[in-house]
């Protein structure tokens, strides 16, 4: 029971700290990166580069493991098909991301910096997720 909570809690906490140290809870930094044709701020590329480098190593380790350290097995996405839904959804996400300079991780993390603003973003995001779920016919 405890390890089911400790591992994701530790991961989420380090993730949130990393987002803030990397400047990603500052919408101006994020929009600065997306302002490719204007006053471009490459900081986000360093954040993404650092994270991808570490995770590339983690995937190499993962391939040599039979099971995760604190769970019975790996539960990983295995789809490889490119669908209109994937592209259309990602396109929409990019529009929302550029609009206010927030994606889901920094949205939750920013609850610790600007609770009112972040709560509006998070609530609207959850409403959007609920809308997709209802459209798909789930309760």
């Amino acid at each position, binding site marked *: 029971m405890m390890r089911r909570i400790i591992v994701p*809690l530790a*991961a989420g906490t380090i993730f949130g700290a990393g987002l803030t140290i990397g400047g990603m809870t500052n919408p101006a930094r994020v929009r600065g990166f997306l302002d490719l044709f204007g006053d471009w701020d490459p900081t986000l590329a360093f954040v993404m580069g650092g*994270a991808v480098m570490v995770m590339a190593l983690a995937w190499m380790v993962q391939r040599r493991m039979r099971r995760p350290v604190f769970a019975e097995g790996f539960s990983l996405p295995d789809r490889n098909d490119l669908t209109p839904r994937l592209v259309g959804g*990602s396109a929409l996400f990019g529009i929302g991301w550029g609009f206010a*300079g927030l994606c889901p991780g920094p949205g939750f*993390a920013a609850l610790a910096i600007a609770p009112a603003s972040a709560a509006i973003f998070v609530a609207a995001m959850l409403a959007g997720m609920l809308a997709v779920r209802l459209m798909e016919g789930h309760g």
Partner: protein
Amino acid sequence: MTLPGFPDAAPLAGLAGGVMIGLAAAIMLLGAGRIAGVSGIAARAFGLADSSMPRIAAWAFVIGLPLGTLVATSLTEAPAPGFATPATLAIAGLVVGIGTRLGSGCTSGHGVCGMSRLSQRSLVAVATFMATGFATVAAMNALGLEVLP
């Protein structure tokens, strides 16, 4: 340290933050056997997605995010960043929520976890949301739309 040509960029802080995000995602992968995709985990926590992840684990991850930010901000003296107006945040949040569910992921799941394993779906997703992100900011700038204080 500053980057030549980009006086406002923070490459070292960015890299340090990125390495921490990578470590966090590695802990999820090697510890719990799961992808640290924030949109999917958040949807699971709030009962908006079917997943084998225990809801309590999803909640623990989501609660960790602001907790980590709280620790990081208490250790540094950076000025508080500015956020968009409530109306802008609401529209942006709605679009992000719909888009990440349809697209099965966001900057963390597709960007950090998917790109690093060279997932074809994630590479296409990242290229797509980067492109529309660039286009959105460019269009808003062309129209003179300022959203941040």
